[in-house]
């Protein structure tokens, strides 16, 4: 037959291709490097940190940065460098925890809402509208205040305010993908609605979710630090970046800038890292753009 005339198939493993695209995308790569570094700090904090994070030395309070205390010490004599390292643990935990919960819950809501449509969609989306109408920080503040300040509650609160973001995003994608020809074809070949949703609609809807997640992780850290700064999340003396800024606040005027500067920088860097990843992730995830 005419088989010989058919062109060869381009065959490449997704991971290899993804990596190649990632390498070309400098910005995303930089973001990834930052986040991975912060992650390594979190994981190996006990090995790197020169001092225990929650054991102050009353003899060495408010020391400026020096060789023995790289980032100086605070008013209780905590080593700021050690605490910034340990802080990465708490803040990354909050970021990933809150994003993971929000993603799962929000996507479930958005997928069902978009796929079923009609009344369900209308009701669910109006509830989401109500939630998004609050400034998210104020809403999270209210939730923590109601649940009581603790690390798990902080994660829950931040997850809660992020749910509408995912629900909306996934719903919008599902509405588009649902009309795609391949979804129609899958239906025409006898697949059930549930299978069509899970096997064909969802996987095709997820790329923007991942992109959004990197941004949300950044916001989650900002929100966590903000709430903790106000005393409504992680509490003194736990090494969390927001808490640390709070502890150093009154010393800014008296010139002990390092107590707030280093945790602040850590927040800024980490948030930036997540945002940079988000910028190029879209490219890496789309199989058609390989």
């Amino acid at each position, binding site marked *: *037959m*005419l*088989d*010989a005339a*058919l*062109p060869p*198939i*381009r*065959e490449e493993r997704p991971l290899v291709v993804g990596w190649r695209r990632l390498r070309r995308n400098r910005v995303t790569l930089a973001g990834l490097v930052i986040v991975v570094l912060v992650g390594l700090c979190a994981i190996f904090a006990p090995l790197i940190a020169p001092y225990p994070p929650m054991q102050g030395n009353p003899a060495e309070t408010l020391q400026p940065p020096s060789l023995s205390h790289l980032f100086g010490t605070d008013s209780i004599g905590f080593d700021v460098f050690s605490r910034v390292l340990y802080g990465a643990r708490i803040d990354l935990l909050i970021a990933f925890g809150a994003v993971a919960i929000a993603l799962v819950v929000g996507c479930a809501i958005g997928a069902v809402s978009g796929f079923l449509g009609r009344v369900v969609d209308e009701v669910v989306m109006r509830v989401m509208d109500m939630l998004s109408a609050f400034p998210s920080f104020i809403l999270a503040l209210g939730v923590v205040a109601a649940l009581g300040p603790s690390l798990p509650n902080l994660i829950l609160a931040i997850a809660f305010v992020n749910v509408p973001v995912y629900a909306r995003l996934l719903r919008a994608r599902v509405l588009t993908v649902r009309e*795609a*020809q*391949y979804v*129609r*074809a*899958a*239906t*025409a*070949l*006898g*697949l*059930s609605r549930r*299978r069509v949703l899970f*096997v*064909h609609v969802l*996987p*095709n809807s997820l790329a923007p979710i991942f992109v959004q997640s990197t941004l949300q992780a950044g916001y989650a850290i900002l929100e966590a630090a903000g709430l903790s700064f106000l005393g409504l999340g992680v509490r003194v003396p736990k090494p969390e970046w927001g808490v640390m800024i709070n502890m150093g606040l009154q010393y800014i005027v008296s010139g002990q800038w390092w107590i707030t500067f280093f945790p602040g920088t850590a927040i800024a860097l980490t948030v930036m890292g997540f945002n940079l990843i988000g910028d190029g992730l879209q490219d890496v995830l789309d*199989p*058609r753009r*390989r």
Partner: protein
Amino acid sequence: MTAEPLLEVRGLATWFETPRGTAKVLDGLDLEIGRGEILGLVGESGSGKSVTAYSIARLVRPPGRVVGGEVRLEGRDLLALSEKQMRRVRGKEISMIFQDPRGFLDPVARVGSVLQEIYRTHEGGSRREAKTRALELLRAVGLPAPERVYRAYPHELSGGMAQRAMIALALACSPKLLIADEPTTALDVTIQIQIVRLLASLRDRFGLTILLITHNLSVVAEVCDRVAVMYAGEIVETAPAHEIFSQPRHPYTVGLLGARPRISAVEERLSDIRGRVADLHDLPTGCRFHPRCFLGDERCRLEAPTLRRLDAAHESRCHYAEQLGEDAA
């Protein structure tokens, strides 16, 4: 035809609610397809060909709705089935392939996994059985290196290969009827003929019955046994394929044939059919084709013709069908 037809469509009506009112895209469509037959359904864009296909498979989406009629597959009325029962019919008894094969393949799923999925949904069985079957199918549709296509994503395939893969998907569960909705329109001309011949060979090998929707008369000439010509939601003529070309008995068919490009007639001006496809919101009285017809007269304006049997296999919806036959002869 003596044997009971595989598919019998009676009085099928599919309406679309639009801001301008109800568009009766199909309003009393009759159609029959015999076992093992390839029926070509031809007509201009907007004549209701695809809606016919979707109505048969009950895949019409709002604002469209099948409002009446019967679609009997081996005597069983599909329109009376529950959605759950219908799901078992789709893919297993009636399958569809579409115009743009790449658009109709899930971009993030490998061809093999979709094949497996469809097969296991209907037939059950282990992954290994499904894979064996999948490779068998990919080979049957003439794909070289089936193992590689099995692992490929749609964007890694050419249009022709993707259409073959789509055909493999449609045939996964040995359906009785394959509805092919403009399967060649999006392909290169050289690939078109390959795909059409593939369909014909699959008919012979698997005893498939095919409803081939197309506006390409060359495709019809190549493989169809019988042709139904559609205009404004109605069948206006059915006849064996060779008769349609030699003795068209409806002015619309005559027009279609004239509008078909032929190599031998390059110097001739390509003729067309004057006017536009009838507005489904505001159908002409009498014969729906009369405003565009070269034979249209007072009778056509007032009296709607019925689909009349001219001989054993030829039907026409024209008052002057006999006259047309004489002219051609």
